[in-house]
């Protein structure tokens, strides 16, 4: 499979209280960022000469929709100059409601973006307020409409559910959010259960008992509500938090993370993964410094802004392969796993498999084991059990 390219745009109008992605609210360094991005491309192209043949480019963030269409075009142009890019490249850009006009969206399309990932989060104003989002439901609807109107054929929408507080999401509330979104018939949906990340203001408020979160049982119910509703609506629940209207609309870029295909990350805090081979023997992961100024300073000195790197030994690869595989609808291919790690998963699983199957959490086809949708809800626990058995 071809490698993918990720570009982290580290700007947001304001920091959302639940978010632990790296971004800055000060946009004055935007042009410096864009300039340095070209330098990073040059350095990466030199360091990974055989990384070429990207068939995905993903603008993530942060809020990439704060870039002007011309700036996006400039970046894509630089990508073409520094790397080999496949003809049918999937170019995704994350868009936040409230940061774009219909014209701007058209401009992105014209610049070469062919897929939008829209940070809807909710179509309920109270929920959006709880999440501290800058936009309201109407703005979210407008973006969805405008994106369609200007001809994007591949739209993804992000949804956050299981929020706490007085908004405290009931099953009905989540259902109505999902149903409302479905009326736009997005090709792809990412539905995330709200996670309180340490170090975020929302986490601090929760620790301070400012609000309650749904308990684990309620979360389980919400998870299956979302899964059932979308599945009945014809979507494939193809990864724990991701749904596609048909196999063709599965996120090509994100699938690279889950299938452990090489990805290159540019921009502050971006991560990269090298799947091994090609002169750079060991599979490895590396990550850029998560600070715009340090990132700029490195590039100014002509150094790659890599903060850390780790090579993955067999054990680590096996852990990741299991974890990532079981989060997906395809599961873990038994033959492939055996070929890579010389482990016969079925015999290692032994009685545990029977127990999980009986409880409707896992199934086995002739050539793979996979979790059921109910199994997805407890995937972490199951993986841990499997790892212990290994």
């Amino acid at each position, binding site marked *: 499979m071809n490698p993918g390219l990720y570009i982290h745009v580290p700007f947001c109008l304001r920091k959302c209280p639940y978010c632990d992605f790296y971004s800055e609210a000060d946009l004055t360094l935007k042009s410096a960022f864009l300039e340095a991005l070209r330098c990073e491309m040059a350095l990466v192209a030199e360091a990974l000469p055989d990384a070429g043949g990207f068939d995905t480019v993903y603008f993530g963030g942060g809020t990439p929709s704060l870039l002007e269409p011309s700036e996006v075009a400039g970046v894509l142009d630089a990508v073409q100059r520094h790397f080999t890019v496949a003809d049918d490249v999937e170019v995704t850009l994350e868009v936040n409601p409230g940061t774009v006009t219909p014209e701007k969206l058209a401009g992105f399309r014209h610049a070469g973006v062919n897929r939008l990932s829209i940070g809807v989060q909710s179509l309920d104003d109270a929920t959006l307020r709880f999440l501290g989002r800058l936009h309201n439901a109407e703005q979210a609807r407008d973006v969805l409409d405008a994106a369609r109107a200007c001809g994007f054929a591949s739209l993804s929408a992000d949804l956050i559910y299981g929020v706490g507080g007085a908004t405290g999401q009931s099953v009905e509330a989540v259902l109505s959010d999902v149903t409302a979104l479905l009326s736009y018939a997005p090709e792809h949906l990412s539905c*995330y259960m709200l996670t309180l990340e340490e170090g975020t203001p929302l986490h601090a408020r929760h620790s301070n008992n400012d609000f309650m979160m749904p308990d*684990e049982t309620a*979360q389980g119910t919400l998870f299956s509500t979302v899964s059932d509703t979308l599945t009945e609506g014809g979507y494939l629940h193809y990864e724990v938090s991701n749904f596609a209207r048909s196999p063709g609309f599965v996120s090509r870029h994100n699938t690279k993370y889950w299938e452990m295909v090489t990805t290159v990350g540019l921009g502050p805090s971006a991560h990269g993964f090298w799947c091994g081979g090609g002169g750079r023997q060991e599979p490895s992961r590396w990550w850029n410094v998560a600070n715009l100024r340090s990132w700029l300073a490195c590039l100014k000195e002509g150094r790659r802004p890599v903060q850390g790197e780790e090579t993955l030994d067999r054990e680590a690869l096996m*852990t*990741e392969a299991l974890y990532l595989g079981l989060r997906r609808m395809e599961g873990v291919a038994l033959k492939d796993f055996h070929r890579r790690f010389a482990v016969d998963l079925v015999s290692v699983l032994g009685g545990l498999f029977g127990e*999980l199957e*009986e*409880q409707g959490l896992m199934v086995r086809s002739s050539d793979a084991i996979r979790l059921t949708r109910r199994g997805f*809800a*407890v995937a972490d626990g199951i993986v841990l059990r499997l790892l212990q058995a290994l």
Partner: protein
Amino acid sequence: MKHIRNFSIIAHIDHGKSTLSDRLIQETGIISDRDFKDQILDTMDIERERGITIKSQTVSLPYKAKDGNEYVLNLIDTPGHVDFTYEVSRALASCEGALLIVDASQGVEAQTLANLYLAMEHDLEIIPVINKIDLPSAEVDWVKGQIDEDLGLDSQAAILTSAKNGIGIVDVLEAAVTLLPPPEGDPDAPLKAVIFDSHYDPYRGTVVHFRVFDGTIKAGDTIKFMSNDASYKVEEVGVFQIVRVPRKVISAGEVGYLIAGIKTVSDTRCGDTITHLRRECETIVAGFKDPTPVVFSSIYPVASDDYEELIVAMEKLKLNDASLIYEKDSSAALGFGFRCGFLGLLHLEVVQERLEREYGLSLILTAPSVQYEVEFHTGAEEIIDNPALYPDPTTIKRTSEPFIKAAIIVPERYMGAVMKLCLDRRGMSVNYQYLTNSRMEMVFELPLAEVVYDFYDKLKSITQGYGSFDYELVGYKETDLVKLDFLINGEKVDALAQLVHKDRSVSRGRIACAKLKEEIPRQMFKVAIQGAIGAKVVSRETISAYRKDVTAKCYGGDISRKRKLLEKQKKGKKRMKMVGQVEIPQSAFLAVLKSDD
């Protein structure tokens, strides 16, 4: 030799033995203030954390007395908890005298009496000491009355101390010099010494603690252990002064240690006599009574591959804990391990903690049991202390269980509460008598099985800390016993099985199932817990399955973060034991014993 004094400090738990030892040590100046810390003889982490002494410790103090002479005072600080009486009795065998401490606010308690009797058995000279006189609640005259009447000692000889504030310390030292007899023995006779303790030093091998009765011992000597004829060349002898201090020679009447490159751990036996290979003594020292274990439990490593390490650890621990008794054992659920006898539940906990801390093991202990006598229809008899080995009930003609005589000392006002507790525990009131100061001694016969678990804690709580008790085994009585099995998701877990009195079996089963429910974490699937007698289920609990346990986002940097977390969690899971497909934490095995009634 006339300038040597060997004595133990004995008392009920917490009356201040270790603190008084501290003051005596400081007074004689063998340790600098910088190196000093409170209860300095309580060297084990577990002693310091729990604030109690578990091991007897010897320290050799140089003291210039008021008579102008230099004395050597060999002091042994002993534990007060009833489980460690064996430590006290071995200490007393190396002494000519004892300081019997009584807490000025608590007065005479059960182990004050028990330890007094022990000292009298050894014909020791006893000096009563009333400690903690600084406390506002101290009642010296009240305690003096008890010393006269309850202990039968002369309260006029009692020394008043505050170990905390350093009051009366010189009086204690002077009394030891003037009132206690020096040791007897012939330094020119063939060597005769007794091993009263030992420990393992990773650099030097076994370190033997001994008391010399006759003769002398020095580096270069070839010695012999009389019980197994093992002979060794002595590398070093010395005395304990917090640290080991080498000496040229240790002579009759003295206490010390020796190092002799002893590699075979099992060669060293507590109570054994040491002599010279070429000049043997004629008789051996009487040695020590064998300890009487009262509870039995099996120890298994959580990870089965740690069994070899456990073997080595048990041997080394045995060196330092002569009361530990064990033999090989195996379980269907837990693999290979050891069946062990303990002097009580605290002893059991201490052994588990020491094995885990000092030898880095992670262990599971099965439900403790007492020893039952089973008589079969065939006339054959068997002793059973392991529920897993309990025979088919239809083959049994009669089962008997051990009974104890418990002596409980309480202020009069708690008499009713104590009576109720003991009757609830299937006890029988045998006798009671009034002591001085409206306190009483109540004597009960109780099934041992009813007291080993939490009797002492219960007694303490119903008497607001004033009750104390001591016990001895008195024999066996017929009983109605059943085996209570526990099934986890339909699978019988032999390591959880218990032998219980039939009348108590249903409530025990119910409580234990509830405890298991608390201890076993939720899993990905439903877990059914059942208590059963034979095929009959007497109690059940269900642990509902986890509904949600999954990370929402999984891109770029999330992946390595999650992998590291999984690796960490996987390590943390070591203390869980898999039974069938269910993870049972180590703590569950002990929790089933705690009663809620």
